[in-house]
């Protein structure tokens, strides 16, 4: 789901652009360190492959079919940092050349799909990709890469004040779940085909990771996502809080200066509160990702 311009409110896209810049910079530096200059054509051509993968339909049953989204598969074959760079390049080309996704919203789309989506898709493989649960880890990677990106996109739209009723949200979550499961199945099938063609296509993770560590990391990521989603789907609580606080702030100026324009005074504060909640949630996710990246990086180099 590529968010076009005009959908996100200014504080949301501004924050996400500011978040995406250092995150993308970090991914680019990591990818540059892992890949010598020789591999630049490889990354570009793999991006073209992801575009071309849309040409091949996977029959699901009935008349419906799906196609590969690809961020999880890229991270298994190129490594997460390079996969992230390829996804960023894809999103940039899509928004510039095909008007698929906005320019100001590019930061949001990069954050959802190329940063958090890729990390969430790679995490299960990194943790269990060498052990017994390998197939499950690959499947889960595909599922997470789509699901996490879609949930983030919906929360950003909700924080931006786009009204969605409960039924709409329910239907879209159902659709997300189906497409995420489909992505998992396609990722696993293509992964197996690749491995039988040439095992060197796959970047094997080092060894089987601790179960507890993996579970904690997964729980942290999903908690962060669900937390933001919950905060944005239940504005009632937030609004109620704003209302009570608004009444409180309204009461004071009423005493201090009876001429205070409290209608205008109240609105920006509610807006600020909403934006603040959004920013805090995104900051939390960013912190979690940064921490995770640091830990993963240290383990890799150790």
């Amino acid at each position: 789901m590529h968010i076009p311009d005009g959908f996100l409110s200014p504080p949301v896209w501004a924050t996400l652009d500011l978040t995406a810049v250092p995150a993308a910079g970090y991914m680019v530096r990591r990818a540059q360190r892992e890949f010598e200059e020789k591999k630049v054509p490889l990354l570009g051509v793999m991006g073209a492959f992801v575009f071309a993968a849309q040409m091949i339909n996977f029959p699901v049953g009935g008349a419906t079919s799906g196609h590969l989204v690809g961020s999880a598969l890229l991270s298994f074959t190129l490594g997460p940092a390079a996969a992230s760079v390829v996804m960023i390049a894809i999103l940039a080309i899509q928004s510039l050349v095909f008007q698929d996704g906005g320019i100001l919203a590019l930061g949001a789309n990069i954050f959802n799909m190329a940063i958090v989506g890729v990390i969430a898709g790679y995490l299960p493989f990194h943790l269990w990709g060498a052990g017994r649960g390998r197939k499950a880890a690959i499947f889960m990677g595909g599922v997470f890469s789509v699901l996490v990106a879609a949930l983030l996109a919906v929360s950003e739209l909700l924080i931006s004040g786009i009204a969605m009723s409960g039924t709409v949200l329910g239907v879209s979550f159902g659709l997300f779940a189906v497409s995420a499961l489909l992505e998992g199945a396609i990722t696993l099938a293509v992964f197996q085909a690749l491995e039988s063609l040439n095992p060197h296509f796959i970047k094997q993770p080092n060894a089987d990771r601790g179960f507890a560590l993996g579970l904690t990391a997964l729980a942290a990521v999903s908690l962060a996502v669900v937390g933001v989603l919950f905060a944005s789907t239940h504005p009632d609580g937030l609004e109620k809080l704003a209302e009570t606080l608004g009444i409180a702030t309204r009461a004071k100026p009423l005493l201090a200066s009876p001429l205070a324009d409290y209608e205008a005074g109240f609105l920006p504060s509610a807006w600020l509160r909403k934006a603040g909640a959004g920013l805090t949630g995104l900051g939390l996710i960013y912190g979690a990702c940064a921490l995770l990246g640091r830990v993963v990086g240290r383990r890799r180099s150790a």
Partner: protein
Amino acid sequence: MHHVVLERWSRGSSFVHRRDARAKILALLAFLAVVATTSRSFEWLAGFYLLLLLAAVISARLPVAGALRRAAVVLPFSLTFAAISWLSGEPRHAALLVGKSYLSALAALLLVSTTPLPQLLRGLDTLGIPGFLLMVAQFLYRYLFVIVEQGRRMRLAGLCRGGLKRRSGGFRAAAGALGVLFARSYDRAECIHRSMVSRGFQGHFQLLSSARFGFADAAFVCVAAGLPLAASLAARFRG
């Protein structure tokens, strides 16, 4: 394929085409930011913004109807959300979504249809985007059409053999096809690299003409960013 149109448009020559890529990028960002922050009296301002964009389209000698149609690719998405917003009892928000997304798409289209992609990426490079990322984007764009065409041929070949249907294990067949496409792309990337190195590739692309940010470019930024900003501020203070 439809992007060929964009290639042809971007190689035209007009006042807008000749402006430095950086000037056009800055103007686009300013325009998009103004559109995104407009909410009061949007109906009037949207008309004004549209007139500005149309003036730019005409002065760039682009086909007006074609440009308007191409920018409409954003409409299915925004109309869906507009319908959702409308049904939730916010018709004004719905109109804002459609208007803003269409104007933004048209503005972005104006940038890419008056700037060849190599120049655009070079402009982004001088504005501080990492060169590594831009190289990847450049390669992606150069080989996009080659690999997509290959994918299309493979689908055709599969259909000719009666495959890619559910009954005959089509899911696994499709996965195998993608695996083969992946392997071919991988091989192609290595071929590309070898032949580029043998022709003296230094690790970055050379541009034939050097870009210069001149007086006309500065004036272009001032007009293209100033007019919508002034209109938006005027509407804000009057309202």
